[in-house]
């Protein structure tokens, strides 16, 4: 989407982005481009300064305070579990514990280290957010849980976006049996509520997944083996919706002038798809993916809460809630901590998604 393209503007995907309001000048060029060629040359200088629709949308997003705060919160919650443990395991001196002898912060700040003589403690200098019912550090477990949420969300989103775009574009562009298949598939998925399918799948194959995937280093360690199955289940239930959005957008794009122009100038279908359709799906995919990440994080937490996701001694926001559920009367903090963090994440993602939609798809606003 370079401004250099203005001369061949009918072919350029940046010219008529149906989703973002084009600046008046570009609309004019797109519509009357053919006749206005002489004037266009004269306006070249001015043209270079006018922002592309994408930059326009970014500017709108930056002005949306709620969305920017939410973005900041999300970045914090992404960086915390990645870099937090590296620092946290080096803070504090060695401690003599009756059960495990002399231990360094690398041990007692580990999310899996059980310290039976310091159960259910409140926040302190040694345990910043306190400990759980078996004396594990809650801050460390929270960071580990966040890491799980993010990893699952990332894995699911990669599958969701790839499958959603591929199937959605094929269905929208070519129609025919692939379109029919997608329609039937989404029908089934609507009848089979996503999480119910995930419960069924993880409920039946959970134990097998534990034994198979636990052999994989890092991913399979610490009770996380089943997450591969969880991610698979969540991805399978989310991509049809993404494909539906993409299909709808592709149907619209197909009728646009720049696609028609590309076709008349002999561009092949593959090239039309890769150069003119897919780049224009950006906004709808990013909006749908942001809103979907929230669903995925809830899904993973929910499955882990029901005992179908991360297995002990692993940690996940859902598992933390489940572990502390019997302690609501005596130690409400332990159940509130993961719940509040999950609430903040879900709300931030929802505000960010709304902000993205307002910025990239202004027409959807009332």
């Amino acid at each position, binding site marked *: 989407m370079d401004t250099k393209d203005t001369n061949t503007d009918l072919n350029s995907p940046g010219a008529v982005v149906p989703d973002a309001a084009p600046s008046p000048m570009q609309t004019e060029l797109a519509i009357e481009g053919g006749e206005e060629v002489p004037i266009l040359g004269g306006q070249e200088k001015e043209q270079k300064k006018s922002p592309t629709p994408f930059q326009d949308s970014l500017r709108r997003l930056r002005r949306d305070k709620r969305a920017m705060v939410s973005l900041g919160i999300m970045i914090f919650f992404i960086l915390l579990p990645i870099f937090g443990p590296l620092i946290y395991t080096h803070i504090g001196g060695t401690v003599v514990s009756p059960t495990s002898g002399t231990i360094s912060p690398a041990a007692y700040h580990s999310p899996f280290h059980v310290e039976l003589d310091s159960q259910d403690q409140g926040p302190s200098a040694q345990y910043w957010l306190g400990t759980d019912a078996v004396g594990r550090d809650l801050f460390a477990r929270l960071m580990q849980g966040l890491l799980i949420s993010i990893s699952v969300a990332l894995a699911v989103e990669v599958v969701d976006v790839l499958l959603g775009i591929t199937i959605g574009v094929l269905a929208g562009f070519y129609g025919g049996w692939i379109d029919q298949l997608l329609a*039937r598939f989404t*029908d*089934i998925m*609507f*009848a*089979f*509520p*996503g*999480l*119910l*399918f995930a*419960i*069924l*799948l993880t*409920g*039946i*194959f*959970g*134990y*097998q997944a534990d034994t198979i995937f636990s052999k994989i280093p890092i991913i399979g360690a610490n009770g996380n083996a089943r997450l591969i199955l969880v991610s698979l289940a969540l991805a399978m239930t989310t991509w049809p919706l993404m494909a539906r959005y993409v299909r709808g957008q592709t149907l619209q794009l197909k009728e646009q002038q720049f696609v028609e122009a590309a076709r008349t100038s002999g561009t092949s279908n593959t090239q039309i798809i890769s150069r003119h359709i897919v780049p224009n799906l950006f906004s709808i995919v990013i909006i749908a993916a942001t809103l979907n990440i*929230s669903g995925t994080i*809830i899904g993973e*937490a*929910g499955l882990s*809460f*029901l*005992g*179908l996701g991360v297995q002990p001694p692993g940690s996940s926001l*859902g598992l933390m*809630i489940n572990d502390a*559920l019997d302690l*609501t*009367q005596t130690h*409400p903090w332990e*159940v*509130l901590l993961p*719940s509040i963090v*999950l*609430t903040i994440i*879900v*709300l931030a993602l*929802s505000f960010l998604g709304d902000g993205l939609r307002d910025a990239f798809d202004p027409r959807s606003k*009332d």
Partner: protein
Amino acid sequence: MLQFLLKRLIGLIFVVLCVTFITFILGYLAPGDPIKTLLGSHFDPITYAQLRHQYGLDLPWYQQYYNFLVGLFHFDFGYSFHYQGRAVLDILSSGLPISLELGVWGLFLTILIGIPIGIFAALRANTWVDTATMGASLVLYALPTFVLAVFVQVLIVSIDGGTGVNWPVAGWGNNWQYTWSDIQFKLAPILVYAAISFAYFARLSRTTMLEVLRQDYVRTARAKGLRERVVIYKHAFRNAMIPLVTVFGLFLGLLVIGVFFIERIFNIPGIGATAIQAISDRDYPVIQATAVLGAVAVVLGNLISDLLYTVVDPRIKAE
């Protein structure tokens, strides 16, 4: 209209077939030999073969699927793998009315609280009432059921602790009975359970109502001097219902899922709780039956929403 309904009905039958097939095939492919597990140390080849035959596990998969389907029509979900000789329906039967009660209340509140709130907010668009209710419903809708339930439970427990009231946070009371002690058990779970979908319905009905109020026919109705109440309830409301009816089926899905979490958190002995227990027992027929029941509930909901659609949108009848 008949053609529309027939087309939808065929679509739904197809969906039911697929959903039952998915459920069946997952159970069919399930790892481990349930009969071996059942027999444990009492294993001997003759009983093993007998039991396999009794459970129909020696048949080829398509015959097993056929039996599975025929069974479903008779509310026969087969036999439990975990409790020898107990029918799945027998295991689910104590929980079924409880979950059903929860579901009916959830649906009832979604419609009876969600829609009026949305219309109320739409009629006071851009006032503080509107902002407050919509803000609250946005938060309610975004929150997962189990997190909301945890917050409510902690709140109740702390109120109990502070005032000495003994408001329960676990259990259910008697099915379909509403004495004061039953209400104490049921109020919080039902409200939390319904919160997500009525919050969404409130937002949706506000949007559609606002849209309808901008239409020409509403302006015409006002111009010819109809009372505001008639304009809103006779002209606007019915049109605003159309999009609500279409998402109705979708929301049954949310309610079905909610059962698992609400029952776990509030210790309610419904089928959601039974299914979670069955998962740790690896009692696949029970898990399958719960999934099928949930999916069929959603399909039925879609059918109802199609029927309602013909009521609220007369254009379909004309076609």
